[in-house]
């Protein structure tokens, strides 16, 4: 049993109340609808999807920002799928998160010392005397100069700010870090630096990453396994190499065809071209049957009526599509 995180049938619904004078109607926005996956120790699982697909909600439920509507989250064999406030401090220490935009996830009124000392204080990682040396150690980990201790987030560059956010996540010696699009606000040359640092840290501390992104090319170079989300459900889950060489779900094929490429060698990989059409429907009113049926070029009668189950097509390669049902 090497699994650090197991998610079983996770659901997160947000109620939308529309009331008139006499009637009160409650609809549900199914942000995450019955997804299951697992994350092994030392693994990088990529969670990919468009905006509105529920990937960030999944991350927030795992970290404990939202409590799940239904389903289990097992962290090291222990169910943590309870309301966030009831989660033991010990578990909160073990799971950290890095948000997308370091401009808004770091308190602009605090300097970097204050930002880094908060988790150290809350989780009583070090004594007061050792606080300074621990903060220096953290800055060193992300290769920021010591002189940054009294700087404020706005005084440093975007890439460096994200490095501070990473140092803050590392402060509590976590074993799982959820990275919610950590580089999508950065330029490619800075992104490369941040990603390299993340990979080094992962090797050094044996961390597991749940890496959320919409950038498939980035995933190809990072993840051990990739999961695709669409309208709150998992559409495909496969090991990285298999995922790109043999994408099965029509949506995955459409996504890969849409990635802008920079070399001929890459074009050879994406030979099947599915032209992208349509848009992701609103998660409040999901079409009946398979959620992708509004955009799918291969849709048949059954897709309009019945939502397919996720099946294992080849070992480790799961897909949720009627084309592959047995």
């Amino acid at each position, binding site marked *: 049993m090497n699994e650090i995180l197991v998610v079983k049938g996770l659901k997160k619904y947000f109620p939308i109340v529309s009331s008139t004078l006499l009637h009160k109607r409650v609809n549900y926005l199914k942000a995450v609808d019955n997804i299951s996956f697992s994350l092994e120790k030392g693994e990088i699982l990529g969670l990919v999807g468009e905006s509105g697909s529920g990937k960030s909600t999944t991350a927030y439920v795992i970290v404990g920002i939202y409590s799940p509507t239904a389903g289990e989250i097992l962290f090291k064999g222990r169910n943590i799928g309870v309301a966030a406030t009831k989660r033991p401090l010990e578990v909160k220490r073990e799971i950290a998160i890095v948000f997308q935009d370091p401009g808004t996830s770091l308190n602009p009124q605090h300097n970097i010392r204050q930002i880094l000392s908060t988790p150290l204080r809350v989780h009583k990682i070090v004594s007061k005397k050792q606080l300074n040396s621990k903060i220096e150690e953290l800055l060193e980990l992300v290769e920021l100069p010591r002189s940054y201790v009294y700087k404020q987030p706005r005084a440093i560059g975007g890439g460096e700010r994200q490095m501070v956010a990473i140092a803050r996540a590392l402060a509590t010696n976590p074993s799982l870090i959820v990275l919610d699009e950590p580089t999508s606000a950065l330029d490619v*040359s800075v992104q490369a630096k941040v990603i390299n640092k993340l*990979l080094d840290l992962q090797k050094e501390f044996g961390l597991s990453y749940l890496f959320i992104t919409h950038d498939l090319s980035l995933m190809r170079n990072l993840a051990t396994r990739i999961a695709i989300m669409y309208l709150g459900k998992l559409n495909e889950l496969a090991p990285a190499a298999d995922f790109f060489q043999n994408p099965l779900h029509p949506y995955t094929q459409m996504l890969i065809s849409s990635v802008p490429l920079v070399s001929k060698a890459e074009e050879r990989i994406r030979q099947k071209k599915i032209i*992208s059409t349509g848009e992701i429907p609103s998660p409040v009113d999901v079409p009946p049957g398979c959620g992708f049926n509004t955009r799918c070029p291969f849709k048949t009668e059954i897709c309009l009526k019945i939502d397919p189950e996720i099946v294992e097509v080849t070992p480790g390669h799961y897909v949720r599509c009627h084309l592959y049902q047995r």
Partner: protein
Amino acid sequence: MAHNKLLHIENLSVSYRVYQGVLKVLQEVNLEVNRGEKIALVGETGCGKTTTVKSILKILPRQAIVNGGKVIFKEEDILRSGDVDLNYLRRKGVAMIFQDPTASLSPIFTVGDQLATVIRASLSENANSSKFKKIDLHKIALKALQDASLPDPERMLHSYPFQLSGGMRQRVCIAMALATPRELLIADEPTTNLDVTIQDQVLRLIKNLVKDKDLALILITHSLGVARETADRIYIMYAGSIVEMAKTNDLFKNPLHPYSLALINSVPKLTGEGISKGIPGHLPDYLNPPLGCRFEPRCSKSIPICKKNKPPMKEVTPGHFVSCFLYNSLEEKNE
């Protein structure tokens, strides 16, 4: 070729006045667009891409100072032309699509109203004339929305921007830009806020419209992939100067400038070759930019002369220009 030239930017330098002094952003930028040609201007955040195109329409913010240079659109220098000519340019010559469609559409008017305003201003001889019949405006607006392949254009005319998705809003902006005949379309990061599948659709739409209407296109982007799949010719920009210019294929086959090379290597590839190291250091401070080549502090191949002089633009192979001391121009090679 000379009569084919639609837009020509010559040695344009632009600075911004700020509290601490003067930010010397654009440094002698040269750029050319021929009729019916698609070019891309690629560079990272803060390198002056938007400043360059804003000076084409003369919509720079008040703090900006144009230090020198010319922007010639159809043999007329925009920077020295009066209000009448400028009005003409904005109404008939150049259309622009901005990065954030939410911010460039007004939330309190319907899509139809906003389209009608643009069409009325663009087609009339002076901006205040109101001789257009409602029915004509309606017809043109409907046609524009259909061209932008928006579903159900009749309903779209009566909806407000916030009722549409991000991709549709950007399509409305495209429809607005191209509702009336133009000669040059400037698209400033039109797909940055969109998802990949929608990005693909919007880029395809822009490409098709540019081809059908026989327009020239300046596409500003920070994504090399987007530039490669859209443009015929690419300008790479770094810290306010153009560092390399080549036909798209030449640039990706044989990037010359150390910055272009590092940038291409930084892009994660689908082939899974791993992640490159990135580029060390950061953009120079525009208050006191380096005297010589602006990339010198981050360049791994820098030589002493790079610190002192700004490298001139040299034609290294036919049609492939680079601004770097490491390369010899065609004439220098012949000697």
